[in-house]
């Protein structure tokens, strides 16, 4: 359920980063208002615990697949929403940096998708409502399953929205949703059961732990209103950024959507960078390409058919561009190699 840099546009990525940064800052502020010395080491080691636990795969009976623990709900139950969010975020940062899990631009999306919904939505609104901080087994089970499922559904849907809004993937909204939601529903339910299991395990062995956590997790300020405000801000920010970019570069967003639906008509080139480059590419594209045609006898016919197959000379890559691209790549590699040799020689 990770977003990747390869599928994201800077507008969407940037907008989500803004939202995530805001959430991080807000959580930090909330934690400052509620000083708890012992929380610092607790967050640190719980983060390491979640990180390690996520690597242990377990097999889901009746299916062939394996599952792993997300951990958001457990963190929220032990730390409260703000500290849990920061802990989850830190785990995702480390994963993004060390394990190339997605990417740096997409990190903002990932922290939001996996952190916001579990810590600020599912935990306070579902888990706490059903299970509170009590010890009733059935309530804990129901709460875990429902909140995990909800968190994953919302997170998965977020991924769909972010991917489609970015316009890099050609997967249509409908198909994507149909793929993501059911899978994540299953994952969410399984994770809910496992989460309940772990919570009950800890409860049985060390009942006072959850009581201590109960003090720590007093939900200050996280009400339905706050959550809705957060979601609204995210929506407004994302929508705003997207529409601003869309108007500046009408080509970009609409054009790629048009492409996805298969239409060959190019929307009229807008102002700005793209049209300049369009002109540039048009001028430079025509001449070198003749040299590439295998049988250069039928220039006229070839030219005509090329035109038909090439409705958008200002977008995408031309053949000469590809050749140039290959040269550039080789050049980059050579430079890198040369630098390495000289660095090695200097040692």
């Amino acid at each position, binding site marked *: 359920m*990770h977003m*990747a*840099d*390869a599928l994201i546009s*800077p507008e969407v990525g940037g907008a989500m980063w803004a939202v995530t940064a805001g959430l991080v800052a807000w959580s930090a502020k909330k934690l400052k208002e509620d*000083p708890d*010395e*012992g929380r*610092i*080491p*607790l967050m640190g*080691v719980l*983060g*390491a*615990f979640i990180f*390690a636990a*996520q690597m242990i*795969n*377990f*097999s889901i009976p009746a299916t062939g697949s394996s599952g792993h*623990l997300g951990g958001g709900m457990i963190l929220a139950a032990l730390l409260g929403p703000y500290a849990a969010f*920061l802990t989850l975020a*830190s785990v995702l940062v480390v994963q*993004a940096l060390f394990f190339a*899990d*997605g*990417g*740096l631009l997409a990190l903002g999306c990932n922290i939001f998708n996996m952190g916001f919904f579990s810590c600020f939505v599912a935990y306070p609104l579902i888990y706490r409502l059903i299970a509170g901080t009590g010890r009733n087994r059935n309530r804990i089970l129901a709460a875990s399953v429902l909140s995990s499922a909800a968190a994953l559904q919302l997170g998965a849907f977020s991924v769909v929205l972010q991917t489609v809004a970015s316009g890099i*993937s*050609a*997967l*249509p909204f409908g*198909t994507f949703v149909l793929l993501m939601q059911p899978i994540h529903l299953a994952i969410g339910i399984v994770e809910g059961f*496992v989460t309940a299991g*772990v919570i009950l*395990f800890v409860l049985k062995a*060390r009942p006072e732990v959850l009581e201590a956590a109960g003090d720590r997790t007093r939900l200050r300020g996280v009400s339905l209103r706050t959550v809705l405000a957060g979601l609204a801000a995210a929506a407004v920010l994302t929508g705003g950024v997207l529409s601003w970019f869309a108007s500046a570069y009408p080509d970009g967003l609409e054009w*790629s959507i048009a*492409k996805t639906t298969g*239409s060959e008509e190019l929307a009229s080139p807008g102002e700005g960078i793209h049209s300049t*480059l369009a002109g540039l590419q048009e001028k430079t594209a025509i001449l*070198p390409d003749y040299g590439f*045609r295998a049988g250069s006898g039928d220039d006229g016919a070839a030219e005509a058919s*090329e035109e038909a*197959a090439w409705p958008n000379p200002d977008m995408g*890559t*031309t053949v000469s561009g*590809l*050749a*140039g*691209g*290959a040269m*550039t790549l080789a050049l*980059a590699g050579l430079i*890198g190699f*040369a*630098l390495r040799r000289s*660095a090695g020689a*200097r*040692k």
Partner: protein
Amino acid sequence: MSGSIERNLSALAETSDAPGSGMVKSLDPRAKILVTLMFVVAVTSFGKYEVSRLMPFALYPAAMAGLSGVSPGRVLKRTLIAAPFILLVGLFNPLFDRAPLLRIGPLVLTGGWMSFFSIIARSFLAVSAAVLLVFTTRFDSLCLGLERLGTPRVFVVQLLFLWRYIVLFMEEARRMVRAHTLRSWGNRPKISPKVFVSMTGTLLLRTLDRAGRVYRAMRARGFEGEIRMLRPLSFSPSRDGLFLLVWGGYFLVCRLVNLPEFLFRAAAGP
């Protein structure tokens, strides 16, 4: 994210000490972070069908790897980790986007394929930049750079504590899984949900105990709520500023100008 513990432990060990050397390592982390971000933004800002115009960006990871002595093989290996998922999603593109876009002789490439290749190129570029950042900057230095760039202190402290204890916990998890393997049948015995729950539950209890002990150790050395560190960072305008300007400028040029076309035209010449 799941993966074999062994693989992740070795991946962590590989990058933990920033094996890159020399001038790249001595750059201020803030400069490296900002350049990496500019790079990623530039690369992902291209239209979905751009492929060749992404190529000049390869100079950055190539140069960084070269200057710091990091082997390209290692970087490549890392970028391939996230590849399967991206490939999966990317492969839908040729399926849904069938409008022909480019003709090379008898070969017709549809928009779907162009965007697929674009996705692959983006993935490699963006991920390699992140990988190089980690290879050339030790994590604690990175965190302090983030703090100077405005990240809240409590989050930075959290990142540092996490980094400090990750390996320990992964090793503990590995021991538990090994113990389970030794007592189970089959080549790669599966962990049932029930076993997983008790494993994880035990790990969690130990975690809570450790948190208590670490807190005690902190108090024993005078901790009263604030983590104090002595880590000055120095931004040198000549070295770090130049680094920022040169690469930022290069990315801007690559973004605005179609270098490959120019290059080819220049080479193909008269």
